[in-house]
């Protein structure tokens, strides 16, 4: 345990051992293989067993449809040749196609079973298992063996990438690289959630968890992500690029690993992965801090993988909410929601479309909350969609008062990330765990809450609701103040049926709520945590002893946007018209007088063109 911990900060020199230890600890799966292949000669029974197993395997092998076998062979070939186009095809379409067809409700064939098809290529088998387990997690219910084995397989994969002699030759599509990181964190998150529910565990599971060691421990997950970042020198790469260094200089800075697209993209994705892990663990500042070198704009390399792009903005936006920086959260969501809308026609076919639209839906919910807390006119389009989807809740939230809290709670729980507890319940301490199980059994029988480890999202919800609760009076106050340019505090208190001193204190809250730290223009390239105090409300007020003075900023009507949009539209219509083939009236009128009419139409056409030319000419001359 202590050794395992050492790894994360001892940076590079210790990296070699790090992941090895992870694998050594997770040797659970290796035992199984061991029984199968190595113990054969000595005992008859074992031989018999092995033979039976062998026959069973052959039977299972013959069950695999031929198209799937040839798909696997083909896939393996593509990976061997580093043929990105073919790998992408197999990965994005083939795998999903055969999943739908044959494995919608069952596991893909075990890696051991298809091993002969790929000459026992260990690397391909690791990649295959990566897909195999991901399929189990997404379509089926993973059991404890799946959970342990998928961890072990991830370790093997990262170990191969990080601890081979020098960078590996393997190339994988960017989409897959992102999925590897994303899935790794997802499995960690679901493992932690599953692990925290003590009362539902069978004795076998309890035993395995007690001996699980570093399996899916927070330290080992962070270790992988930091190692990938360090190996690829991704932060150095981003900095060098921002400073406009030449390709040669950058190559020298990032070294032999960082030059390879595989490592560079894994480095990028690990940064986003870290952001996500920190959010799951409730560390919103650290989440934004690890992103400090990444430019959050549409040109950034991580936006090339849509799922990554969307996830990044979701987690960044959520961090801003928890930092009470609602304008920043709004801007973040608006940017990416607009992007998703524009991209819709392209990514409906993507196998990740479902996931992306689910995340988008949650972001609309978060946007609605932020919009109620800090009304702005950043993007009417997105605001309208959000109000359409969450109309009822939005009305309650923006009205404030006691009805608002349940609406906030509902949307927060729907849209927040899954929070996890960093440490397991004390599985390694039999007495303590039994006490927990008994306690939860008692609680259940007494019909009380049956949670053993309190749901971490409740803690974050409570904090958020406390923040929001402080602002519940603001919408009411605002609606009153809007009617006046100056008003006595006592009179206002009477309107609200409140004590004058209470009211004055509430006004300070209102002032506070109309200020926020936010990023401003010119901050590009600085940490996402940087910001300046800005005013978020169009209504401002000040108290002169006991008199409230109010001033409202209004936005003059905007004409330019309308004219620009319509000029552009007209230009397009004109272009379209010009490029259309000439109308056919010439033919229609042909029978009566063919020569004059054609002559006519040319005559009619000519002046138009000539006219246009003249007009341009005269403009130039003028």
């Amino acid at each position, binding site marked *: 345990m202590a050794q395992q*911990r050492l790894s*994360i*900060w001892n*940076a590079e020199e210790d990296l070699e051992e790090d992941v090895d230890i992870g694998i050594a600890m997770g040797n659970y799966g290796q035992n199984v293989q061991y029984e199968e292949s190595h113990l054969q000669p000595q005992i008859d029974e074992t031989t018999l067993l092995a033979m039976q197993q062998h026959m069973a395997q052959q039977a299972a092998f013959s069950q695999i449809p031929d198209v799937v076998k040839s798909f696997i062979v083909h896939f393996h070939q593509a990976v061997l040749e580093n043929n990105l186009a073919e790998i992408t095809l197999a990965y994005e379409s083939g795998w999903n196609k055969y999943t739908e067809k044959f494995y919608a409700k069952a596991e893909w064939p075990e890696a051991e079973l298809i091993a002969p098809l790929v000459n026992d290529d260990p690397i391909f088998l690791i990649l295959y298992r990566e897909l195999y387990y991901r399929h189990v997690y997404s379509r089926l219910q993973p059991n404890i063996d799946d959970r342990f084995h998928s961890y072990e397989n991830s370790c093997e994969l990262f170990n191969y990438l990080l601890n081979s002699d020098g960078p590996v030759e393997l190339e994988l599509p960017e989409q897959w690289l992102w999925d590897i990181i994303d899935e790794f964190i997802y499995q960690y998150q679901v493992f932690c959630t599953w692990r925290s529910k003590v009362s539902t565990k069978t004795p076998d599971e309890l035993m395995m968890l007690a001996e699980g060691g570093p399996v899916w421990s927070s*330290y080992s997950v*962070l270790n992988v992500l*930091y190692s990938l970042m360090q190996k690829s020198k991704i932060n150095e790469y981003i900095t060098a690029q921002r400073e406009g260094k030449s390709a040669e200089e950058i190559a020298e800075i990032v070294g032999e690993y960082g030059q390879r697209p595989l490592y560079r993209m894994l480095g990028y994705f690990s940064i986003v992965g870290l952001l996500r892990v920190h959010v799951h*663990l*409730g*560390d*919103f*500042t650290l989440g934004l*801090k690890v992103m400090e070198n990444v430019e959050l704009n549409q040109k950034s390399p991580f936006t090339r993988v849509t799922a990554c792009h969307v996830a990044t903005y979701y987690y960044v936006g959520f961090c801003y909410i*928890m*930092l*009470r920086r609602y304008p920043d959260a709004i801007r973040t969501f608006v940017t990416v929601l607009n992007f998703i809308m524009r991209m819709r026609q392209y990514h409906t076919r993507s196998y990740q479309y479902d996931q992306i639209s689910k995340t988008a839906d949650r972001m609309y919910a978060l946007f609605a909350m932020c919009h109620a807390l800090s009304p702005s006119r950043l993007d009417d389009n997105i605001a309208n969609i959000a109000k359409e989807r969450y109309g009822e809740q939005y009305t309650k939230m923006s009205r404030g008062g006691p009805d608002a809290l349940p609406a906030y709670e509902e949307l927060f729980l729907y849209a927040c990330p899954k929070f996890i*507890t*960093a*440490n397991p*319940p*004390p599985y390694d*301490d039999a007495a*303590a765990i039994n*006490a927990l199980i008994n306690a939860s059994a008692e609680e259940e029988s007494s019909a009380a809450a049956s949670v053993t*480890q*309190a749901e*971490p999202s409740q803690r974050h919800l409570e*904090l958020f609701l*406390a*923040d929001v609760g*402080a602002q519940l009076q603001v919408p009411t106050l605002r609606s009153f103040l809007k009617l006046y340019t100056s008003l006595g505090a006592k009179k206002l208190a009477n309107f609200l049926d409140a004590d004058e*001193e209470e009211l*004055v*204190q509430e006004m*300070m*809250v209102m*002032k*506070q709520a109309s*200020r926020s*730290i936010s990023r401003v223009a010119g901050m590009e390239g600085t940490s996402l*945590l*940087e*910001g*300046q*105090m800005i005013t978020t409300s169009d209504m*401002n*007020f*000040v*108290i002169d*002893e006991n008199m409230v*003075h109010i*001033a409202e*900023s*209004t936005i*003059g009507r905007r*004409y330019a946007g309308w004219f*620009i949009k319509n*000029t*552009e539209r007209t230009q397009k219509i004109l272009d379209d018209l010009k490029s259309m083939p000439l109308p056919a009236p010439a033919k229609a009128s042909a029978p009566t007088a063919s020569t004059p009419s054609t002559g006519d139409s040319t005559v009619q056409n000519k002046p138009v063109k000539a006219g246009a030319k003249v007009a341009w000419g005269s403009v*130039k001359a003028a």
Partner: protein
Amino acid sequence: MTSEWLTPSTRSELIENLVSGVDRYNPSNVGILEDYLYHQIRSEEYDCLANLAILKLYQFNPDLYNPDVVINILIKSLTASPLPDFNLCISLLDERPINSQLDEPDPLPSILPLLKGLHGLLYRCRFPSFWEIYNSEQLSVLRDNYTVEVAGFENAVRAVAIRAVRATFTRISSQRLGSYLDLSGAELSVYIQKLGWIVDASTLVVTIPPNPDNQIEAIVVQESVKLPQLTKIIAHSVAKA
């Protein structure tokens, strides 16, 4: 304005490396960060990110957990209101396993609700109630064991009130200001004088100097057309010419 929060000028290079590097995960560094916390407490400094790094280590290594440190961190973050520091600290306090072996009973479960209550009052600008509750008999356990050690704690609370008053008022009665600061008479006069605010001798009304937040103006925002908005139209015309 956030740069001082992100990197306080009082932060040493050693701490900076811990806060910004992977060394922050090394449990053996917790002592350095804890010492730094106690330094902050003695010398009225504040470094939120460094303190969060301690809580992060506690989150990952429950055996390091030291309730007194946690309470002191929360007390320091209390007076950062209206910044979310207090909540950020609470976010990192994972549920503690019930078998945690401490020599003495853990004071945090009883202190935490008190601190949350105080934070709520500060965040909701209920300054008179804050003082009333803070000075109550029930909270003597917090005052006598903890805040008494935190240099300038009460002045830090007053600074929270001053921030709110400065943004909201142009003039405020001495009495009201005094109730926010828990000061009266000569003490109050000295405090106001230190702020550089002016008291009218006859009416005892305090004038707050103009600042960006307490000056209001009705503005009509006019649209301004920027060149990039027109590029498409201009480009189109040029292409046709």
